């Protein structure tokens, strides 16, 4: 079964052809990162305009590289949310045009389902499966008892973990995006400041990083006022230790409670070296997968893969009323 994946939820225009949810025949990604870098983050209106400019080219290139024709496709899978609404609409509408023109069924896919299913390209998913989704916009623990069955065990009550990294970096005078820089600095420092581990004993699977962010900012502010010397590397290490302690602790809690067979860490923060190290150190009894770098950032191969399993599971296909949604619950 040939599935065309389409992903335009943020700043990457991507189209891919994946066979049977496994074999990637093409995965074209047109990144806008250089355009947004000078603004210190993605600018929604610019992102939409760039998607419009690139979308036709990316569609045609993906089809050409896969060496098939639009007529050969069996299904179109497009990210319907969550994401930037203007960006989502470009992908959704382009996908609907192909669906209508060639009479191919279409399914709207949840972006995070895509990040989880990126794992199926290189590995085989085993259930019950636990996914820790960590990025600039998400911090969630998802339980899957079988294919395409998502249960959100918990999520952040305020800031996403990647966002906390960006904001702490901003206060410390480090460049955007904060994740890689803070991670790098943390590797050279020591946990000397003993920041709180928010909600670590809450007994549930929710997270909170806003209070930690405020605590870090206050500590920095007070040290500046007292004219104390600030060791940025230790500062970053202390922050990173606090964050990863909580993430790993709750992952282990869920693993034990639900008899988990496989753990997937997905999203941009999956690239964080401190998190990777701690996960591998502390969890020995269950395999942990971090997706291949090519499928770690936003891409359409993961959407095609997720769409394939969504379709197989018998979920209703969408019609031309399919629309983008900036905020979208996975369990819907």
């Amino acid at each position: 079964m040939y599935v065309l994946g389409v992903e335009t939820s943020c700043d990457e225009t991507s189209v891919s052809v994946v066979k049977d949810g496994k074999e990637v025949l093409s995965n074209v990604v047109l990144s806008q990162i250089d355009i947004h870098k000078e603004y210190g983050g993605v600018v929604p209106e610019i992102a939409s305009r760039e998607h419009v400019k690139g979308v036709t080219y990316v569609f045609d290139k993906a089809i050409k590289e896969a060496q098939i024709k639009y007529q050969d496709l069996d299904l179109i899978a497009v990210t319907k949310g969550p994401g930037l609404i203007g960006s989502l609409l470009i992908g959704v509408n382009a996908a609907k045009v192909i669906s209508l023109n060639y009479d191919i069924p279409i399914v709207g896919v949840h972006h995070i389902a895509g990040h989880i299913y990126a794992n199926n390209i290189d590995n085989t998913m085993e259930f019950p499966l636990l996914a820790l989704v960590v990025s600039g916009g998400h911090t969630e623990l998802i339980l899957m008892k079988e294919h395409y069955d998502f249960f959100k065990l918990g999520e952040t009550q305020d800031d996403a973990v990647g966002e906390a990294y960006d904001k702490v970096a901003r206060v410390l005078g480090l460049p955007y995006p904060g994740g890689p820089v803070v991670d790098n600095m943390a590797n050279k420092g020591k946990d000397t400041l003993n920041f709180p581990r928010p909600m670590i004993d809450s007994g549930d699977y929710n997270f909170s990083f806003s209070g930690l962010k405020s605590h870090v900012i206050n500590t920095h502010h007070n040290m500046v006022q007292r004219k104390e010397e600030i060791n940025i590397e230790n500062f970053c290490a202390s922050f990173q230790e606090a964050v990863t302690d909580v993430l790993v602790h709750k992952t282990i809690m869920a693993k034990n409670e639900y008899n988990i067979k496989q753990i997937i860490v997905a999203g941009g923060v999956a690239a964080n070296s401190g998190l990777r190290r701690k996960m591998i150190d502390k969890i020995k009894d269950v395999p942990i997968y971090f997706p291949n770098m090519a499928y770690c950032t936003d891409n359409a191969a993961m959407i095609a893969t997720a769409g394939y399993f969504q379709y197989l599971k018998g979920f209703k296909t969408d019609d031309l009323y399919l629309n983008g949604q900036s905020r979208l619950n996975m369990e819907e």
Partner: protein
Amino acid sequence: MRNECIYLKTKIVLNSIEDTKKLAKIIADYAFSGMIIGLAGDLGSGKTTFTKYLAKNIGVNDNINSPTFTILKIYQGNYDLYHMDVYRLEDIGYDYELDDFIYGEGVSVIEWYTYIRDQLPEELLTIDIQADGEFQRSLLIEGKGRYEKIIEAINNRYSN
């Protein structure tokens, strides 16, 4: 041009999260379709926390978390809530995709509103938050037109 004199102002001090809840309740009682609330204050001053309590009081049941990454999050309630963080628009000024919401039928809460102040309507409620300590916050609240009665309600509540 803006005329500072015709903006009604009040200054209050909040000492706890309970105080923030109370203030959010007072403001939510005056919610109307098309309401715009601008929030300013440093990282960690409590902009999103205030929005959480406001949301609860206008019938939004979902958990409100930070809109920083997507700039806009939309929630359904008695009034729909359009929760925005325009920090990243500082150098750009404005993003016209936000127009549909700012001039829409729900309640808009705009964090870091000062970055796009010139493009916002003259009539709105603004709350500038200053963190005095770990819990204490000093607030400057301003409004005109339809927002004046909110300032009066806050004054009545806090002068007693």
